[in-house]
């Protein structure tokens, strides 16, 4: 996995207390849309590594963390900057949408 996998503790440390931009993809095993979106993010992560950190949360393993946020489905991407929520993308998200969203966060 080219994207760092988070649990509740590392989510707190890396996202909430983190500096700079990051995105977290919430995904689950048996979701076919996730199976397209997650590898796309894995490919994109090294290229944008200096600008944005990429994280991954398995919603079955981290059910309580998932429920903390009002997400309606997988895959969902949440964006943060300096620990502040910056918005989300969901469903069959494309590479272009992710690039635009990261660029749009000042």
């Amino acid at each position, binding site marked *: 996995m080219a994207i760092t996998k988070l649990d509740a503790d590392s989510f707190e440390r890396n996202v909430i207390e983190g500096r700079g931009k990051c995105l977290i993809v919430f995904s*689950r095993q*048996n979701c*076919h849309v996730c199976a397209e979106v997650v590898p796309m993010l894995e*490919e994109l992560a090294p290229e944008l590594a200096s600008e944005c950190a990429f994280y991954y949360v398995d919603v079955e393993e981290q059910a309580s963390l998932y429920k903390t946020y009002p997400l*309606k*489905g*997988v895959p969902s991407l949440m964006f943060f900057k300096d620990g502040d929520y910056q918005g989300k993308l969901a*469903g069959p*998200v494309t590479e272009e949408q992710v690039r635009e969203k990261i660029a749009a966060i000042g």
Partner: protein
Amino acid sequence: MDNLYDIIIIGGGAAGMAAGVYGGRSRLKTLIIEKGAVGGAAYSTREIANYPGFHAHVSGPALMADFRAHAEKFGVEFTRGEVRELSLEGDPKTIRLKKGPEYQAKSVVLALGTEPRLLGVPGEKEFRGMGVSYCATCDAENFTDCVVAVVGNGDAALEEAVYIAKFAAKVIVIVIHDEGIVDCNKVSAEIAFQHPRLEFVWNSSLAEIKGDEDVSSIVVKNLKTGALTETAVDGVFMYVGLLPMTGVVRDLVETDKNGYIITGDKMETSVSGVYAAGDCRQKYLRQVVTAAADGAVAAHAAGHYIEEFEEYKTMVAGSDQILLAFWSPMNEFSINAIAKAEQISAEYPGKIKLVKIDLYRKQMLARKYNVQTPGTFILLKRETACGTLSTDCYNTLESTLRAWMTR
């Protein structure tokens, strides 16, 4: 060449992997290209209840993992990638991915699958993933104790409505037909009708999905009265049919008006050496078992095509003029005609190479030169047909062949 395969299968669902099993088992160098989840539509199916032999509970992902292991056992390779462009005419055929290498194949099996049809109502796109979902397996849990609408009334709609009701407080099923009429199988429909948390709204369609950041309500239109009713919901699951993911081949192979690929009974498409299998094909029943059957037929036919094509290449390689003689063991005239043609040909040694083609077994050249009847002769000069003879008269046969031999 490392990137040249006998068969390249585009799509790693049930059809593609079954084609892989048959291709690999025939010792053909076979590659499956999949853009997302290996397992296709079955991958997000919780239970496969009617794949023969698997009468104990089997999940879609588990069955698909077995399909994959089976294909890999026979040496089939898998790669991740999305096809950008195909060139299917001629030989070899070329497949370009959005990212990554270019592949070449002697034959191609299109097992492209389907995707959910969008209804196209306001709010549907905006709220996708924010309350609008096409996959109960993925998202139902997020609606625990919520009110959810399901749009549609086929197998998927009612089976998924019952699944969603395991979590949701209430599931409103919006059905376009009169009361009691659904397009779902009887067993699942009965379960749905008797479910205490399912509520059916008949003669109705979804007009709009509303919300702020997430879905908060839907507007339902009564088709008899035209009345619009707004109802508060937390989510909407859409099961209003499927569309074939055939965009990338739409201008390359023949499709019907809905985009499904048209094939013959050997899964052959309108392009020589290109086959289609599974849900993306125009067919009557889209199930794992029919997808697997399509895949088997497609790979088998592709194997025959490759064999014939190689034979053809060897045959035309060293000869200037060739006489193709099409016959069938079931057609007596054609058997005698071939014998006659061999006699005549022997009288003109080295002039024209006679090649006998059993129409019952071999189809490639018959298709290429549009031959339907046994007893047809085609004279090829450097691969171009310059004479065609289809007769049931021995005298005409003899005079024409002698004219060709002395030309």
